[in-house]
């Protein structure tokens, strides 16, 4: 952080012309090597997920029984599974599912966090007291158990798991957003807006919400890793995204576990991909937090 401060002083003249995200990018490259590594890994994964058809030599459901349990070879870089499906192909397609679930859930989480956190802080008083007790109660539940309970009732599915993960993570994040909104509320421009007769909804939407964006972005980046990991845990327990979609957690649990002794690679590589993605998100998220919102340090 100290280095970043010096940087602003020296390059203040030309830096002012950059948009805020440009500034963050420059500081990320200059001062956060670990965060930059995370960002590069993530870009590569996003690229692979987007162009899976071009990158992979097979289809994700393409079976080839003569290649059952094939080891590492030129034809199958990471081996093949019990149906002769190429593991590399399935991992790349798995990135598509995991990242889509992660990103969609994080968007839902951000909206939920804002919807709960901002009014709770701005309206204060009894509303805040009641809303926060609900948040307290939700946070008291052991995370995975409550998610399993809800998913067992809604049934498994791509949409269900995304919505459930998004909402539950959003409720947790709302506490942080509330804290930020409480401090924004004390600013003079809020008082000024109130003085000219702006209604609470307008103040919240136009003045409070835009100022929480740095925190929202940081929470989203850090939350992505957690959400992907949770999705994998749920898939591992059989409550995740159902087949035939290849997901990293599902590949580990359903097929990976059963054939682990014949083909250990089936259990190893999806786990490596999963860890790498979460690792990259955490690194990138930490760096972003330092750059955008140092107040949150230690919150994750």
């Amino acid at each position, binding site marked *: 952080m100290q280095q970043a401060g010096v940087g602003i002083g020296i390059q203040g003249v030309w830096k002012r012309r950059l948009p805020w995200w440009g500034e963050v990018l420059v500081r990320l490259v200059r001062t956060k090597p670990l965060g930059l590594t995370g960002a590069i890994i993530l870009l590569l994964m996003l690229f692979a997920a987007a162009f899976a058809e071009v990158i992979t030599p097979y289809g994700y459901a393409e079976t080839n029984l003569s290649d059952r349990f094939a080891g590492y070879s030129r034809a199958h870089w990471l081996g093949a599974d019990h149906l002769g499906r190429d593991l590399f192909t399935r991992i790349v397609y798995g990135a598509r599912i995991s990242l889509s679930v992660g990103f969609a859930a994080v968007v839902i989480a951000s909206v939920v966090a804002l919807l709960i956190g901002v009014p709770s802080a701005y309206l204060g008083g009894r509303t805040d007291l009641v809303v926060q007790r609900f948040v307290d*109660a939700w946070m008291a*539940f052991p995370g995975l158990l*409550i998610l399993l309970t809800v998913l*067992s009732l809604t049934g498994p599915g791509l949409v269900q798991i995304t919505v459930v993960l998004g909402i539950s993570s959003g409720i947790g994040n709302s506490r942080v957003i509330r804290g930020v909104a409480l401090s924004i509320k004390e600013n003079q421009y809020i008082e000024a807006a109130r003085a000219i007769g702006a209604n609470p909804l307008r103040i919240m939407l136009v003045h409070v919400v835009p100022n929480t964006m740095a925190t929202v972005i940081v929470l989203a980046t850090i939350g992505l890793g957690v959400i992907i990991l949770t999705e994998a845990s749920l898939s591992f327990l059989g409550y995740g995204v159902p087949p035939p979609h290849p997901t990293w957690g599902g590949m580990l649990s359903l097929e990976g576990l059963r054939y682990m002794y014949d083909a250990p690679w089936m259990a190893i590589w999806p786990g490596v991909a999963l860890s790498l993605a*979460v690792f990259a998100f955490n690194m990138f998220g930490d760096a972003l937090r330092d750059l955008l919102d140092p107040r949150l340090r*230690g919150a994750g």
Partner: protein
Amino acid sequence: MRQYILRRCLYMVPTLFVVTVVVFLMLRFLPGDVVHQMLEGYAYAPTVEALRRELGLDKPLLVQYGTWLADIFRGDLGHSLWTKQPLLQEFARRFPVTLELAILTLLVSVVLGVGIGVLSAVRQDSWADYSGRVFAILMLAIPPFWLAVLVVVLPSIYLQWTPVWTYVPFTQDPLENLKIMSIPALVFGLTRAGPIMRIMRSAMLEVMRQDYIRTAWSKGLAEQVIITRHALKNALIPVVSIIGIQMPFLIGGSVIIESIFRLPGVGQFFFEALIRRDYPTVQGINLILATFVVLLNLVVDISYAYLDPRIRYR
């Protein structure tokens, strides 16, 4: 201090009340009817209405909630739909296993987290710091269930060493019990050390910059004395609060660890109930564990206030 504890206890009441409301409503409002589940293939009663009446589900929602709450106050948390066994008894039998796993996991993660965190802070921006931080984030990224699977499978494939995972209660043979529990606790603890390490590092960095530490240095005290006796004691305070936050994760994550290592804990009990769609059991376990977490957070908050007197005046 007494006033603070009293106030914290009072805050707990509405939270626990809301916990019961959330648990109750969630299982009533979400799609998926218990009654249909029980009739399909199991024929617990001749008709849907009969079973509904038998389970008391035909009454208004408020009455159902009231009955449930009144039962809870009498210490009756309900019965399993399938076995008709009282839930509390079943729970009490399995809880020690989960609690032991949680405590051992916590121990592993605190020892690792505090150790690496202190080293990282004291040798800031050195190789030790960087490798410590990478290790912590890496461990945070590794799914515990994957690490557990690797620990179980890899030795048996490559070293032909297959440990026997038969659970022995602590009261029966403490040594054997610890031998069995140590590997799941180590695996789980490793993956939970990250957050503690990060809090420890940042708290330690903050404390090390305080005036009284500079005074200690200028007095010529040995580094070890400054770190352990002066800095660590104060830097440990935020770690206490993170332990409270970790608890729901520890208990939630135990579902997975218990099912991989075949430990007869609450996690496995819960999972079986879920598969059989035994909702009173699922509901009861959620309630008990949430209450446990709320109580634990109370203890953590009180010890936090005890350790750092400034908290009370907030």
